[in-house]
Each structure stands twice: as C-alpha cells, then as structure tokens.
C-alpha cells in the first residue's frame, strides 16, 4: 500500500500539470480588450479645439442622442485612412461625431482638417493623453459609440466600411 502512494501522487500531479498546460494551450495568447461594454462615459474638462475655451463633458454629450467619439491625431497614419468613412458617416446626420485630438500639434491638426474635411460636430483637445486614459482608450485611432451617456461599443483601430455599416445598423 505504502509503495503505491508515491507513483499514485506523481501521476496525479502530472495529470494536474498536464490539465493546466492543456487549458493554457486553448487560451488565446493575444490580449483582446472587451469592446461590448456598457459603461458610463467619464467626466472630464478640456479645451475646445478651435476657440481654446474650456469645455465640460456634460455640455458635449446629451441624453437620448447617438454620439461617436473619435480619437484622432494628424500624425497618425491610420486616422488618414479612416477619415473618409467619418465624412460619409456624417452625411447621415443621425449621429454626432465628436473629435478628441490626441497629443497633437494644433497647427498640424488644423491643416489635417483643412485637407481632408471636418466631420466633427465638436472637437476637444487631449494634449497629454490623460483624457484618453479616462475613456479607457489604447491609442489612436479609436472610436466609441455612445448613447444616453453610455458607451455601447468601442472600435479600436481605424474604421472601415464594414464597421461603418455596423454603426449605421446600431443607431437605427
């Protein structure tokens, strides 16, 4: 009996280790952030892009309306790619696109909008990137679909036609 305990426990330990490693194999190694989150939008103070006046988050986002908060920057190449889609999305007029200018040079940002058009109803500035953190953002470009002061969905990376169609479906 005593002789059996050792091999038995060794087998059990190896069994458990095998089980854990096997489970680990199934897990995705790529970290994928949660995009379907129902979260209240954060409260923040910032400056308006063109006038430089102070703005409060409560004055930008109203209840019972759809908003798309888009984090963009003139130095960000994928933002250039997604810009035409934002311009198209704006044509429907059912959604208000709000811009968050992320760690940008204001002159460059203005030129960016002059060159490619301005789809934003309002733009505020995030000079040090802390407001983006408050939103739980990872970088540029990133978009948040908002309704009733709640984030419905998060789009990390540039928007494309597929995602624009999805947004159009969601806001109907």
């Amino acid at each position, binding site marked *: 009996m005593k002789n059996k305990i050792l091999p038995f426990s060794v087998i059990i330990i190896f069994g458990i280790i095998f089980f854990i490693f096997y489970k680990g194999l199934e897990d995705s190694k790529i*970290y994928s952030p949660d995009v379907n989150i129902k979260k209240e939008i954060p409260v923040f103070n910032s400056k308006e892009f063109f006038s430089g006046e102070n703005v409060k988050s409560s004055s930008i986002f109203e209840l019972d309306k759809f908003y798309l908060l888009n984090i963009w920057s003139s130095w960000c190449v994928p933002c250039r790619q997604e810009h035409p889609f934002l311009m198209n999305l704006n044509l429907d007029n059912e959604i208000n696109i709000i811009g968050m200018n992320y760690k940008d040079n204001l002159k460059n940002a203005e030129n960016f909008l002059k060159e490619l058009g301005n789809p934003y109803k309002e733009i505020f500035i995030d000079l040090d990137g*802390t407001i983006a*953190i408050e939103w739980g953002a990872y970088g540029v470009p990133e978009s948040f679909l908002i309704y009733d002061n709640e984030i419905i969905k998060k789009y990390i990376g540039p928007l494309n036609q597929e995602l624009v169609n999805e947004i159009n479906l969601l806001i109907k």
Partner: protein
Amino acid sequence: MKILRFFLIVIIFYTSNALKADELDKRNNITKNLRCLVCQGQSIYDSDSEFANSLKILVDRKIDEGLTDAEIYEYFKNKYGEWILYDPKLNKNTYILWFMPLLIFLLGGAIIFKKLKKKHN
C-alpha cells in the same frame, strides 16, 4: 527670530524633499505593477510609449489627489480590466495558480513525512 525663521525654512525644505522622494517611490512602485497594454512584456514603468507616458501622468495626478495604492489600482482596473495589473488577484480564473504551489508543497511534505516514518519504524 531671523535664525528661527531660517531654520524653519530649511526644515520645511528638507521635509518636503523627503515627501517628494516618498511620492516618487510610490509612483515607481505603482507603475511597475501596471502592464503597458500596447507594448509586449513591458510595464508602464519600463515603457516610453504614448500610452505609458499618459498613464504615468495620470498616476502622478492620482497620487497628488491623495489616493492610496489600492484605490489607484482599482481605478485602472475599472478602466482597462484585470489584465492591466501584474499581480493577479484571487478569482475563479486564477485560483489554480494560487493553490497549486501549496498543494504540491503539501503533497511533497506528506510523502517525505511518510518516508521518514517508515525509516523510524
């Protein structure tokens, strides 16, 4: 009176310096325990990415606001989820990780105990 004032200023100067050093320690400690989500295998402390730099600023701000370490971790956990913390908390996904070493230790101990007992006999 002048000397007294001078000493007061010197004392305040040095104590405030010490306070600042404490804050720096606290900040380094916190940023080392936060994962840079856009980098590979780096903490916020190690990284110089845009994301990490913004996070450092925010950590400083939270320390200035007088939040405790736990509150700051909780704040970032709320924003980005459990993954941002390097130190995994005990939950249903991590309990194996926490109890496995203990289990192996106990089992090994039991085996050694049995063997020693056998020898005695």
